[in-house]
């Protein structure tokens, strides 16, 4: 029973309530850094670290943080973790850090992270909060990766820096430029909507059949 509960919190973030596809949160880093798959992975990992760390801290201290100043407290906790992530990336992978540039410090303003603290971590016990954070961050990583892979393949003809096609492939440069980000995410959301639409239709059909059967 206990195990199921944690698993439920985890899987919720990955698919049903996916932060990007279903809730349209955290769009800024989503579009800005996904011009290659490797940048997407770095951003996803940094967000994972910050989200899990701050969820853990916020939910451990949830009974001591006064209600009136809770937003400021959350923001300061998040900013601390982001600073750690910023300096760690600078030390480990300076090249990726340079490409992500100002978008690492901007994780602070990612509404996904603050949203999870407010909606979940400040109300539930630590174990559930951490599972929820891992789930949401994994969902965010999946979304970043799917956008990054599509844009890198179309815009650069490569994946993780490895060329996929022969010389004859003409890269769609527009895909790695800003408009490509908007267009790709729009199309991906379209697919997500279509999938949900079909599923609802199917469930309605099943309900209909059951009613007429009984």
């Amino acid at each position, binding site marked *: 029973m206990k195990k199921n509960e944690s698993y439920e919190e985890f899987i919720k973030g990955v698919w049903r309530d996916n932060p990007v596809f279903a809730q349209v949160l955290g769009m800024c880093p989503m579009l800005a850094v996904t011009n290659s798959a490797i940048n997407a992975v770095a951003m996803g990992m940094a967000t994972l670290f910050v989200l899990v760390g701050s969820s853990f801290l916020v939910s451990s201290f949830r009974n001591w943080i006064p209600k009136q100043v809770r937003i400021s407290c959350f*923001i300061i906790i998040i900013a601390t973790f982001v600073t750690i992530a910023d*300096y760690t990336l600078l030390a480990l992978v300076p090249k990726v850090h340079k490409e992500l540039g100002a978008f690492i410090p901007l994780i602070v*303003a990612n509404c996904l992270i603050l949203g999870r603290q407010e909606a979940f971590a400040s109300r539930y016990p630590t174990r559930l909060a951490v599972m929820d954070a891992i789930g949401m961050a994994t969902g965010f990583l999946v979304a970043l990766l799917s956008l990054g892979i599509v844009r890198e393949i179309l815009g650069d003809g490569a994946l993780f820096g490895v060329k996929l096609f022969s010389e004859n492939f003409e890269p769609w440069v527009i895909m790695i430029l*800003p408009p490509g980000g908007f267009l790709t995410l729009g199309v991906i959301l379209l697919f997500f909507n279509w999938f949900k639409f079909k599923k609802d239709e199917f469930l309605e059909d099943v309900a209909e059949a059951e009613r007429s059967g009984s």
Partner: protein
Amino acid sequence: MENLLWIFVSAVLVNNFVLTYFLGLCPFLGVSNSLETSFRLGLATTFVMLVTAICAWILNTYVLIHAPYLRLICFIVVIASTVQFIEMLIKKLSPALFRAMGIFLPLITTNCAILGLAIFATNRGYGFWEGIIYALGAGVGFTLAMVLLAGLREESELSSIPKLIQGTAMNLIIAGILSMAFMGFAGLFSST
């Protein structure tokens, strides 16, 4: 003087915060359903940007030289308290204006365009006046993008669009086309 003009034009058109840097997308996609409200939100954001630019410059010049690793925490605290302060000020001075943009003011804290502005201005080493002009340009650019998208969305409500595309997917595709149009301005400075 010429330099300041360039910073302004570049922040409004060439490096538009929303359409080129992807900053401030949450209000851009979330609140842009009517012309009136997006214009007001744009103005409020511009105002907060100006105040933030001044505060960031003071912090950078006098405080953060000694502790650069505290930059992020200082900036975010300054922004959050500026927004809170402006909210109280407007409430006291002009209740009518407060009612008009009440809900939008707190939202500005989580607008990454503001924090982005402070960080970009620091990274580029802008001075006091350059910072202010940059903030003004960024604010005008943000308002322009918001108003453009809101206008297009109001028009699109009158036409019959397939149910599947309606909502965020359509807004993103419209934003993509707008962003392509803004790429045309990139040639403006290429001669230098």
